[in-house]
């Protein structure tokens, strides 16, 4: 059993408060490179990754991203090349490309955690505005942002849910 991997999975948290310490280029490169190893159906390479470190660009990205509570020092925007998705013959409502955005995000978050960075995903942003700000080519749409930085000592309280199902209630072993 690989304890290090399990420990990383169990100790990773979404970081909502980041310091203004810059993210090192090597750290950023390591996190970015991890997405290569994320499980993607058919290894079709339908996704694009946009790295943002310029302060003015980060500020603009945050302005059009209502879900971005943190002020990241770097961000990786996971995009889907919908033109290629279409060329591949996926129907428009196919969930496949979105599932692969999720696997990339999970991998990037774990990689950030392993390099000592704080990270948090953001999906609440204007796709149209962000595409314009990042000058993305036609057919490529941003679907998720990974915010990166160094975690602040004080974090906002964790999201508490009352009255929801317990973990065990979510699991079915074998046939129901």
């Amino acid at each position, binding site marked *: 059993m690989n304890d290090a991997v399990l420990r990383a999975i169990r100790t990773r948290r979404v970081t*909502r408060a980041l310091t203004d310490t810059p993210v090192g280029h090597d750290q950023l490169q390591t996190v970015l490179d991890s997405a290569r190893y994320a499980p993607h159906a058919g290894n079709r390479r339908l996704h694009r990754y946009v790295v943002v470190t310029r302060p003015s660009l980060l*500020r603009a990205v945050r*302005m*059009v*991203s*209502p*879900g971005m*509570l943190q002020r990241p020092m770097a961000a990786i925007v996971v995009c889907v090349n919908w033109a290629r998705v279409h060329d591949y013959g996926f129907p428009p409502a196919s969930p496949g490309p979105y599932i692969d955005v999720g696997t990339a995000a999970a991998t990037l978050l774990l990689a950030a955690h392993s390099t000592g960075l704080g990270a948090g995903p953001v999906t*609440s*942003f*204007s796709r*149209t*505005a962000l595409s314009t700000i990042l000058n993305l080519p036609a057919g490529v749409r941003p679907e998720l942002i990974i915010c990166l930085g160094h975690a602040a000592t004080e974090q*906002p*309280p*964790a*999201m*508490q*849910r*009352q009255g*929801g199902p317990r973990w065990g209630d979510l699991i079915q072993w074998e046939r129901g």
Partner: protein
Amino acid sequence: MTSEAEEESVRVLDEADAVELLAYLMTAARTQVDEAAEYAPMRLLTAAGRLAEMAEPNARAKLRPLLRDIRQGCSETAVQAGDPAGYVERLDALCQAVAEYLVRWLSLDRSP
């Protein structure tokens, strides 16, 4: 006797802050179409918290405590929307703080 509202008003936002808030509100209107209903008040709270944060440095001393309360309250409230009763209670407390400020600011507690 003049009310606080009739005293000289101060400018609390610069253009950069206003643009930031404008962009937030505009894009939040769009993203809300695709988001869970419980996110709507959360986005408004975040906007209120950001406005309070932007305004606080230049606001009059009498307004600053309210801005601090709102900033802190929004930060604590925005991530606990899964507790509906507590959520409403916290929002009501913030609304009451705003109303109490308005009463003082407009001198509503004085005889006309």
